[in-house]
């Protein structure tokens, strides 16, 4: 049976300013929309597709799950082999891949489904769309990652704090753990970097993926590019060990994304004598700068290209 077109229902009679009935049409005369509208819209978008739920759940499970397994393994040993919160790195190495995927998908799924034409028709201010996407995505992934890293850090600190430092750290102590002078603790800087620092790092990495997705408009292209960006510098550095290329190799390794993450867990790739000197913030700043540059490129691209 065909559905006859019915005229839009008149707005329910609402009391007007003078207590009478408001006869204005349901639609206000002229709406002035702003970024807030776009943010509300993007928030509905991101929470209403399954890929968001899946990627965030996978990230959470990997970080907390692998974190727990690492803690169990470390706990069984006689010494604290790693910085107390350092074991969170292994889960996050994998977990960041889920965030990268979500970051790319946030934009590219619109291009692959055709939704982008609806989005841009509904909000012709393209930079506003990108800003809203970036804000919503960054806030969501930061909060979710912060929850995962905080839980992991709590597990690690509860299970590993107070373990004797290995003789490697204190050569005067013999092989007897009970003789150890120092025990493992996490400083407030370590706490801050392993939770807030790591979460900022991963959320920024996701934001970079979002920018790359905007530039490439392709899910496989975006994900591959991001994987290359995260893994390649470190992998290439492994092949640059000869005398003539060592310097380049060292630089690649030092500035690789993996070292950035690892340093926030106080386990930089380059061994540092004085553990208190380890500082993950500069590499986080570098990632922020790279992300900002990519976003500027994405803004330029989205403003000029046809949809």
């Amino acid at each position: 049976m065909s559905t006859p077109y019915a005229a839009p229902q008149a707005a329910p009679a609402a009391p007007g300013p003078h207590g009478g009935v408001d006869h204005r049409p349901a639609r206000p005369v002229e709406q002035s929309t702003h970024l807030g509208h776009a943010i509300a819209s993007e928030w509905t978008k991101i929470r209403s597709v399954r890929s968001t739920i899946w990627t965030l759940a996978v990230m959470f499970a990997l970080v907390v799950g692998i974190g727990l397994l690492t803690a169990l393994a470390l706990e069984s040993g006689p010494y604290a082999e790693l910085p107390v919160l350092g074991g969170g790195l292994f889960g996050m190495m994998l977990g960041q891949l889920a965030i990268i995927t979500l970051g790319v998908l946030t934009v590219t799924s619109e291009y692959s489904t055709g939704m982008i034409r609806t989005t841009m028709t509904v909000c012709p201010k393209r930079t506003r769309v990108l800003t809203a996407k970036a804000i919503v995505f960054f806030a969501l992934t930061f909060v979710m990652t912060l929850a995962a890293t905080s839980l992991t850090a709590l597990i690690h600190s509860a299970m590993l704090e107070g373990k004797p430092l290995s003789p490697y750290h204190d050569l005067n102590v013999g092989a007897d753990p009970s003789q150890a002078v120092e025990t493992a603790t996490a400083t407030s800087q370590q706490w801050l970097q392993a939770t807030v620092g790591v979460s900022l790092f991963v959320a920024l990495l996701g934001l970079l993926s979002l920018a790359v997705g905007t530039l490439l408009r392709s899910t496989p292209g975006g994900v591959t590019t991001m994987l290359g960006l995260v893994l390649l510098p470190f992998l290439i550095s492994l092949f640059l060990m000869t005398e003539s290329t060592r310097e380049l190799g060292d630089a690649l390794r030092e500035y690789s994304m993996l070292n950035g993450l690892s340093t926030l867990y106080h386990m930089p790739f380059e061994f540092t004598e004085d553990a208190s000197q380890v500082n993950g913030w500069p590499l986080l700043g570098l990632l922020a700068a790279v992300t900002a540059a990519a976003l500027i490129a994405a803004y330029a691209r989205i403003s000029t290209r046809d949809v």
Partner: protein
Amino acid sequence: MIELDRLTKRYGTTVAVDQLTCTVQPGVVTGFLGPNGAGKSTTMRMMLGLDRPTAGDVRIDGEHYDRLRDPLNHIGALLEAKAVHPGRTAYNHLTVLAQSNGIPQKRVPEVLDLVGLGSVAKKRPKGFSLGMGQRLGIASALLGDPKILMFDEPVNGLDPEGIHWIRNLMKYLASEGKTVFVSSHLMSEMALTAEHLIVIGRGRLLADTSMREFIKENSRSYVRLRTPEPERMRDVLATAGLTPVATEDGALEVDSVESDRLGELAAEHGLVLHELSPQQASLEEAFMQLTAEAVQYHAHGTGKGA
């Protein structure tokens, strides 16, 4: 009202839309007609700010599309049924659109009921039929109750019932004083809905006229007649200065003459007539003739590789 002023779009050396100037008026259904590849979709995309014109201008109610702060309240567009995320429910999809334009949430269930999708509001469009997809697209176009509506090939792939529904919807919207702009490559479809016609071919304006004018100017009228003595009839007609054309089934077609005159001629010469009927060439034919030179992809005969 939509105003196009020398609107032009080039892709490299290909000209998709070429100096298109016309105005789409409110209160009527305006058909936007052209063969496939004529530039209809490109024109509509430029109207919506999706593609930037290479030259020229298009304005919606006097404004550039990208200057509209709440476009859904001005113009609703059905571009393609597939311009949705298949994994987001119909309800959420419309919520996304409503929020970005500051349209009250209560409007979402309203338009869903309006297009007959109320019962599948919480379903993902992944499982929608073509017709349901079109209805969802139309729901989003109606969301802001805009004064201008634009439909790109709305009946494509629809079942007869869906086609009927869309036709009535468009007529209703126009009767409400709205500007209704609808593209199609089917003249026969337009003949049933549109009052005004804008015809383009290869990106150029071919006609901008009322449907009635278009029919009058473009459809050839002739008289078809059948007689047991076609040879004698031909002679009679030739004497009267008429040149009949024989058809395959043995009938004769005579251009530019009233059927009354032919009947009188036959009676004068004692010719028996089995048929005498005034005919009008179909609009489809008129449209094909008009755009014949502008068609981009011809089917070259049927002999080779057909």
